[in-house]
Each structure stands twice: as structure tokens, then as C-alpha cells.
């Protein structure tokens, strides 16, 4: 295996494009190194980009934040601005692994690993986060929602990699939340998860809503019917019942060692309900 630290995004893209064997980008390494240890993947080329410009920075941009691809969970969690604007995104990221893993793991790594259970992705999706992609043809922006295409798969083309995530600005009376179910209190992969992002009017009526669920389908799934159930309501019991039904209907999980179809479906609804109430309270709603 070769380990390379390219001196620019352009050279990194070229290296990636030209590489004939198995290539991996090293961000926090908390997935790649585990896969190497388990002999699931043995890269011929490992490209480390952490040292490149902007990769480890969080910058304010048009009322939102641009988060470099090598910013660790711990660094994100310590950033007061992002915490205030997108608390659900931060809590999703911070749920990944242990304190030790937080010292290394990154949102972009979590996203590009392509796991349907990735904790940072649902809240990025409900936040409308944008991934900036570099490749042989330069840079382009796409919604985070369009990055994962299936377990272990992304829409990135040959030679492409993500350099940052943009979390947009948002109005007053808006917030988000993320919850997952795990059997222990820490250290597990999500069995099911839900993120909810809400915008309220001055009376506490929901004007915008996005609901995303994780670990219950091949990719994180935005549930439009769940959004519709919340918009125009103050999250009354009827709206919540509809939300739960919409979420359960959107689930198409698998039975595996971590959970059953019935359990994943049921808990996804419960988590969406609870996340919606947290997001509502954070947005200033009182019910």
C-alpha cells in the first residue's frame, strides 16, 4: 500500500483518477482502518488530504457554515456557532463512536462510507446540507441527500472526493434534532434513526418540515408524507400520529443481527415523534 499526501485538490483528483488499484481517501480513518484490519479492503493507495487548505476549518459563509471534510466530530461539537444553528446535525455527528473515535471521525467520512445507518447523514439531509465535490473537472456542489446511493455506494464519479459540507442559513424559530436507537447507551451502530428539521411561524405553527430516517432502507430516506403531516400544525396528537404512520410506511428495513424489520419500523416512528418534539421545542414552539 502506498500512502500519499497530495499538495493540492487538483493533484489529489488526478491521483485518484489515474489509480488503477483500490484507492481510499483517508479522512479520520475510523472506517478505513477498521476495514483494513478486518481484511475487508486492502487499498493499494491511501490518499491523505487532511493537510490541504480548508480541510480542517469551519468557516462562516452566507449565514451558514462550511465544514471542512477533515473536521473531526470533537471539533464540530466544540463549535458554538454550528451548535446554535444546527444542533441536530452536531448531535448526529457526536453520537458516532467513542470519545476516541470523535477525535478522528468526520462527517464526510461518515457520509462517504455509505452506511445506511450513518449517524451524521439524516440530520445533514434534513438540514439541506450541500456537499462540495472536487474532481478532475473541478468543483461542483450537490445535496448531501444525493451522495449515498446504496450500502457502501456513493454517486461520486471516478476521481471525485468531497472537500467540505455546507450547512445553510436558516430563519428564526427553526431548529432540528436527531435521535437513534441503539441497544447500549454508546458504541453501537444505529438500529434505526430519525432526524427532523422544522421552521415555525410566530404562532408556533410549522411552516416547513423535513423528516429523514436512517438504518431502515438502503440509504437515508426523506419522508415527504411525514413532512406534510407536520406542516400547518403545532405538532398536535393528530399530526404526530400521521407523522408516525408516514414514517412507518416509508421504512423498508432488513432483518439482521442488529434488529428486526418490525423493531426497526416501530422504533423509527417512535424516534421521529420524539425528534420532532425536541426540534419543535428548540425552535421555540410550545405545545
Amino acid at each position, binding site marked *: *500500500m*502506498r*500512502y500519499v499526501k497530495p499538495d493540492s485538490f487538483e493533484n489529489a483528483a488526478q491521483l485518484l483518477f489515474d489509480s488503477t488499484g483500490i484507492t481510499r481517501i*483517508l479522512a*479520520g*480513518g*475510523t472506517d478505513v*482502518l*477498521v476495514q*483494513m*484490519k*478486518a481484511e475487508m479492503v486492502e487499498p493499494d493507495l*491511501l490518499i*491523505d488530504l*487532511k493537510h490541504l487548505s480548508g480541510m480542517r476549518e469551519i468557516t462562516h459563509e452566507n449565514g451558514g457554515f462550511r465544514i471542512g471534510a477533515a473536521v*473531526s466530530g*470533537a471539533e464540530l461539537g466544540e463549535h458554538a456557532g454550528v451548535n446554535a444553528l444546527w444542533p441536530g446535525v452536531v448531535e448526529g455527528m457526536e453520537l458516532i*463512536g*467513542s*470519545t*476516541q*473515535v470523535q*477525535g*478522528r471521525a468526520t462527517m464526510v467520512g461518515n457520509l462517504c462510507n455509505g452506511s445506511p445507518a450513518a449517524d451524521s447523514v439524516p440530520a445533514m439531509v434534513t438540514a439541506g446540507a450541500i456537499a462540495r465535490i472536487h474532481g478532475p473537472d473541478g468543483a461542483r456542489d450537490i445535496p448531501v441527500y444525493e451522495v449515498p446511493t446504496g450500502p457502501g455506494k456513493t454517486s461520486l464519479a471516478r476521481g471525485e472526493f468531497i472537500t467540505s459540507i455546507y450547512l445553510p442559513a436558516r430563519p428564526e424559530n427553526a431548529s432540528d434534532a436527531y435521535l437513534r436507537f441503539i441497544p447500549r*447507551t*454508546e*458504541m453501537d451502530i444505529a438500529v434505526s434513526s430519525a432526524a427532523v428539521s422544522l421552521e415555525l411561524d410566530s404562532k408556533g405553527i410549522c411552516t416547513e418540515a423535513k423528516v429523514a430516517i436512517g438504518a431502515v432502507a438502503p440509504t437515508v430516506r426523506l419522508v415527504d408524507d411525514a413532512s406534510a403531516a407536520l406542516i400547518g400544525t403545532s405538532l398536535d396528537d393528530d399530526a404526530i400520529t400521521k407523522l408516525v404512520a408516514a414514517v412507518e410506511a416509508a421504512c423498508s428495513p432488513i432483518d439482521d443481527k442488529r434488529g428486526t424489520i418490525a423493531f426497526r419500523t416501530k422504533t423509527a416512528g417512535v424516534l421521529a415523534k420524539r425528534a420532532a418534539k425536541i426540534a419543535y421545542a428548540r425552535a421555540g414552539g410550545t405545545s
Partner: protein
Amino acid sequence: MKTNHIQTTINGDVTEFLCNADESLLDVLRDRLGMTGAKEGCGTGDCGACSVTLNGRLVCSCLVLGVETEGAEIQTIEGMANGDNLHTLQRVFLEEAALQCGICTPGILIAAKSLLEKNPNPTDTEVRYWLAGNLCRCTGYDKIIKAVQTAAAEMRGA
């Protein structure tokens, strides 16, 4: 496989080593540098026995490559005591029997020290969540949590 030459600072000492690209920092510490205080319980970041700090951040050394540590500052259990003077956490762990077999102890001490540097006055819950990535199979964690709190109180007073 091409061997890489790396220079780092470990426990304050400039240290050079050669390593292959796929060698973890844990392998480098244990196999190349003879520093066996960090333990391999899993090699996949699930047990915390290999905890060290890398540029001040608590990490699992099994999830860091040796080649990534060029120019880095690393702290390991071997650097925790000051000569014969144990760190407060080390001494209190002994006084309060916060270890049984001791295999997880170096990692837990490094992690606890990292916590108290960030948060000198944690709640029990904060200690428990901070240390959730450090598995201990002997103690049931009770005496570990209490020892961290005793040491924290002593360090705040000192």
C-alpha cells in the same frame, strides 16, 4: 512495501521511526518502539485499551496510521508519571482499587486525564459517557468512576 521515515514527539521526546504505510500507530508504539503500555484489545476502536493523545486529542492508536504522525505530538501512558511521581489519577487508581487485571488501565488513565484537562469538574454521568469507549470487563466501572472523581477533586484543590 515502501518503508516510511517518520519524526514525531512522544512524551516530549523527539522520536524517529520507520514504518510501513499500513502500520497503525499502535503497532509502531508496540513493535517498533517497544512502548507496550498501550494495549491491543480489538484493533478496531471498540475497546479503548490503546488510547493515546495525538496533538492533544484523545484517540485510539489502532485507528491512526504511523505515517500520519509526522510532526505530531503524542502522549502515552509511559509519559504520564513524572519520574517516580505518579500522576494523581495513577495514584488514586491504586489507592481506590480501580483496577483488577489492569489491561484496560493505561487506556482509561489516558482517557480520564484527557477528560479532566477539558472538564475539571465532571458529573458522574459525564465521566461515564467520556469513558464509554474504554471497556473494562473486571471492575463493573464503579471504582473507576469513583477514582476519577476523587482524583478530579484533588486536582481541583491542588
